[in-house]
């Protein structure tokens, strides 16, 4: 990488270069101009001359060359040349500044044969610090989820750096290489006139380094790559946990899907174990223990797969789940922690300014969702608990619903539109009954507030009023009954008889969303779009009496419930917090919310920011460095848990080769080198001495000269 160049450690002796001319001078001095002699006959001379070998005739020149070569090799040997990496040259008399970036991410814990890449990295850093001149400004940056420099600014003493390195350990975090490189560049900016070098000591995991911002490094900064990873590493890891549905309710069948990956060269059989602290009812036909469930999976080389655990939620509350596979050389990614809540009901929030108005769509929808919603004093066993609020009163962060319904909502204030956009972007679900021109501007407001693409299946044109047009009504003539929302109405009779008097004209947006139902005039009645991770069900109709008769139909209530159920997130990841980053979540708030403590998986107390919103307590742990459950306790009462896991990207140990690194980091003027291992470091920093070979060569040439003389004598 970068090539090698010759450097002379004893250049002062170059004054002896004149000695190279000595053989030539002697040759010229001893050479005689041929004397002219008239000889009786050349016939015998010619025969004798012809019998001479070409080698013999050229012997003077050959000996001159050989002797000059001997002197030259001898002189070169005395100049003590070393082969030095091109990246390490031209420092010369210039002051040096060096930053050593040490990868302290999870993958550096990989332990095969008793030595981890991190242990090798510590030795490499120690060797580098030994060879970097003591006058150089040096610092070490540990690259984990954030860049952690050993010193605030580079200094000339290597001792504190060495202490830090020796005392350090790899983390459970994913390495943020970009942050580390940025920090290194920032620190080197203070030394613009120095010969600057960044040493990168890592296993150069592809998932971390493929997108490393080498372009941010100035061209005059030399890069030295020091790979310390295993030549071939195999690893198995749990990469994800999904819950289906994402927010289960009591008595619902829950499926816990565990994704497992095999980053190894051979197929493996893995036993996946699930432990739950509160386990629901196990299906009767399965013989597993209530506390621990196991599944087997066989994974081909470099492949991934999943196993499912099906449980029935028999109780409400929060549950901790712990998935694990047998330990291997990288054990931290063999565990996955997750938490999920089992609700007693599906929480729906209806945003409407007209629920109190009889005959309004909001009124009918609310009654269809939750007949007892308006009567809060009565306990009910409905599967849906509907709350309602006005558009201007919307406050989603305090209690996010599973499904948000907008029907007859007034003009959305900007704050409300932003909340809806954020809610949807985070995976929320929304059903929007379009009944008024205000709905068009509300959709526009949500689109404006969103930071991601708002993908709707159709746009709204003008309102169509069949009664005003004299055509009485329209019906759904075309519907996709395979969609979950309409599956129940597969026979078509229930929805075919629905009459619609008023709805928006629509224009299809090709390639965006899906449409499920269409009116006889071709306008779309039902469609689904997306915003971020969330989804929107657009209902181009209203339940108001003057807009349709669906509220009077038997299919209305099941249709509304199917909409809610189909829009509820069917699955979702349940372990998002990553070691090294902030972890946040909400737990049920106690009545007082005082005396709440937070405990790391190891049991140590940690601090957190909290925010009570209604019945929930939002918890933000600014930095988590352990894997497991961070528990929120109020005395002995376990309020809730925040699961923290390792980043699954650290499990893929496939590394970039030196060539690939060179290509990634290459720029026209950049100098690069690679060295791993003590010998390579020494060769890199001090150069490979080649003077012994030159001396040997000189002796060989001397031997050749003697052999030549003997041969010529014969």
């Amino acid at each position: 990488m970068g090539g090698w160049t010759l450097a002379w450690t004893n250049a002062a002796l170059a004054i002896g270069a004149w000695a190279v001319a000595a053989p030539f001078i002697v040759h010229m001095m001893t050479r005689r101009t041929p004397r002219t002699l008239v000889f009786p006959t050349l016939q015998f001379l010619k025969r004798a001359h012809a019998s001479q070998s070409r080698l013999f005739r050229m012997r003077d020149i050959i000996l001159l060359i050989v002797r000059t070569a001997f002197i030259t090799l001898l002189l070169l040997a005395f100049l003590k040349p070393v082969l030095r990496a091109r990246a390490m040259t031209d420092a010369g008399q210039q002051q040096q500044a060096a930053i050593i970036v040490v990868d302290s991410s999870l993958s550096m814990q990989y332990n095969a044969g008793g030595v981890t890449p991190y242990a090798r990295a510590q030795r490499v850093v120690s060797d580098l610090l030994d060879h970097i001149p003591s006058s150089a400004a040096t610092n070490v940056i540990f690259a984990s989820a954030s860049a952690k420099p050993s010193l605030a600014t580079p200094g000339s003493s290597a001792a504190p750096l060495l202490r830090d390195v020796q005392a350090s350990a790899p983390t459970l975090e994913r390495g943020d290489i970009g942050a580390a490189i940025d920090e290194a560049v920032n620190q080197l900016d203070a030394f613009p006139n120095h010969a600057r070098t960044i040493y990168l000591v890592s296993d150069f995991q592809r998932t971390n380094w493929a997108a490393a911002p080498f372009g941010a490094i100035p061209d005059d900064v030399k890069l030295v790559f020091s790979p310390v990873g295993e030549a071939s590493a195999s690893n198995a890891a749990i990469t994800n946990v999904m819950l289906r549905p994402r927010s289960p309710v009591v008595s619902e069948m829950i499926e816990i899907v565990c994704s497992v990956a095999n980053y190894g060269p051979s197929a493996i059989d893995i036993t996946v174990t699930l432990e739950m602290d509160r386990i629901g009812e196990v299906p009767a036909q399965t013989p597993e223990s209530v506390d621990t469930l196991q599944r087997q999976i066989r994974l081909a080389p470099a492949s991934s797969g999943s196993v499912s655990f099906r449980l029935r939620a028999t109780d409400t509350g929060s549950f901790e789940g712990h998935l694990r596979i047998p330990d291997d050389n990288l054990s931290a990614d063999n565990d996955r922690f997750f938490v999920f809540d089992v609700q007693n009901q599906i929480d729906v929030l209806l945003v409407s300014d007209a629920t109190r108005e009889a005959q309004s769509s909001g009124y009918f929808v609310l009654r269809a969702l939750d007949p007892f919603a308006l009567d809060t004093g009565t306990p009910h066993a409905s599967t849906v608990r509907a709350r309602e609020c006005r558009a201007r009163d919307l406050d989603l962060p305090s209690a996010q619903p599973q499904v948000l319904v907008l029907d007859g909502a007034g003009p959305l204030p900007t704050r409300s539109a932003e909340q809806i956009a954020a809610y949807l972007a985070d995976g929320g679900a929304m059903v929007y009954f379009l009944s008024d021109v205000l709905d068009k501007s509300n959709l526009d407001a949500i689109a404006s507030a969103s930071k991601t693409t708002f993908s709707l299946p159709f746009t709204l044109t003008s309102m169509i009023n069949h009664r005003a047009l004299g055509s009485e009504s329209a019906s759904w003539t075309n519907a996709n009954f395979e969609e979950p929302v309409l599956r129940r109405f597969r026979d078509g009779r229930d929805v075919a008889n629905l009459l619609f008097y008023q709805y928006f004209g629509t224009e299809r947006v090709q390639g965006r969303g899906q449409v499920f139902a269409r009116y006889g005039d071709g306008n779309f009645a039902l469609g689904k779009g997306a915003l971020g991770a969330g989804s929107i069900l657009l209902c181009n109709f209203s339940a108001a009496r003057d807009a349709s008769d669906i509220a009077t139909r038997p299919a209305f209530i099941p249709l509304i419930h199917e909409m809610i159920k189909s829009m509820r997130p069917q699955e979702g990841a349940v372990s998002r917090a990553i070691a090294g980053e902030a972890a946040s979540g909400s737990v049920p708030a106690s009545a007082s919310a005082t005396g709440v403590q937070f405990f790391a998986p190891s049991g140590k107390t940690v601090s957190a920011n909290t925010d009570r919103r209604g019945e929930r307590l939002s918890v933000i742990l600014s930095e988590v460095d352990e894997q497991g459950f961070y528990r929120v306790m109020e005395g002995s009462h376990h309020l809730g848990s925040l699961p923290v896991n390792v980043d699954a990207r650290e499990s893929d140990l496939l590394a970039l080769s030196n060539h690939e690194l060179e290509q990634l980091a290459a720029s026209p003027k950049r100098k690069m080198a690679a060295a791993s291992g003590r010998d390579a470091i020494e060769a890199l920093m001090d150069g490979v001495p080649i003077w012994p070979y030159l001396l040997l060569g000189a002796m060989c040439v001397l031997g050749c000269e003697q052999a030549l003389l003997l041969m010529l004598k014969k």
Partner: protein
Amino acid sequence: MDLSRIKSRQSSPPPLPTAGRGGAQHPEWKYLSHAELMGLKNLLFAARLIVEGAYAGRHRSPYKGSAAEFVDYREYYPGDEIRTIDWKAFARTDRYFVKLFERETDMACHVVVDRSASMGYGGKAFNAFFPTKEISKLDYASYLAAAIAYLLVKQGDRVGLTLFDEKITANIPAGSTFPHLYGILNLLERQKPGRKTSVARALHDVFALHKRRGMLILISDLLDDPVSVFQSLDMFRHRRFEVVLFHVLHRYELTLPPLDSVNFIDAENGEVLTARPEDIGTSYERELRAYLDAMAAGARARGIEYNLVSTAMPYAAALQKYLLHRGAR
């Protein structure tokens, strides 16, 4: 025969130069310096014994049976046969004299000397590289030729001289007098290295000059195609010439000169080769040895006297070696 005749005969040859390079009185007669002459005089006894012994009785005279006729006296030299001393002349003069007999047939000796460009190796230009003076192959060959000629003349034999490079450049027919000898020496004195070598062609031309059998002494570096050279020599052998080869090579031709890097230039065709002698010396000597062995084998197969002579070898020693070898036959 009176003694006055002997005295006049004694005074017939002019005083030989004793100054010059070796101390001959006449510098131009450097090849017969007194010191060298003294050396030659040392060889004369053995040389005379061998040559006369070899020639006397071996000459195949077409006139068989004829006795030798007394013609003259000459002063006694140590080594002469005692039986040839004229005791009567000693009684009269208190000096030793030997009788000279006219040979019915005299065998001419033709000294053929290579003066091509390659024979100039080791001369003045060469001496620029070395602190001690080196003698060129041509000079050495000339010394050798002079010594042979002198010996032969002193022995009363006829000797001729032919110089060649790619063809004959000078020829002195065989003669036995001292003036003749002086002519030969004079010619040798004046010689400088010539052009390219063509031993075979030159021998062809020499063969055409000499109809009667005799002795052919070839002094050359023989840097020519051995097959062609031997084919030419075969002609002389066929005519029953006695052939003696003096293969003259410079000592820094037998081994490469101890120099660093050298641009070797071929003396005869100008080709250039740059090499270091120490690097290719062993291979060169191996190649040269193979060539010399081939030359010796070829000569041996033809009954040709072959003598490899280095310029480092004293020429008298070279001659003595040859004469002793001949004496053994």
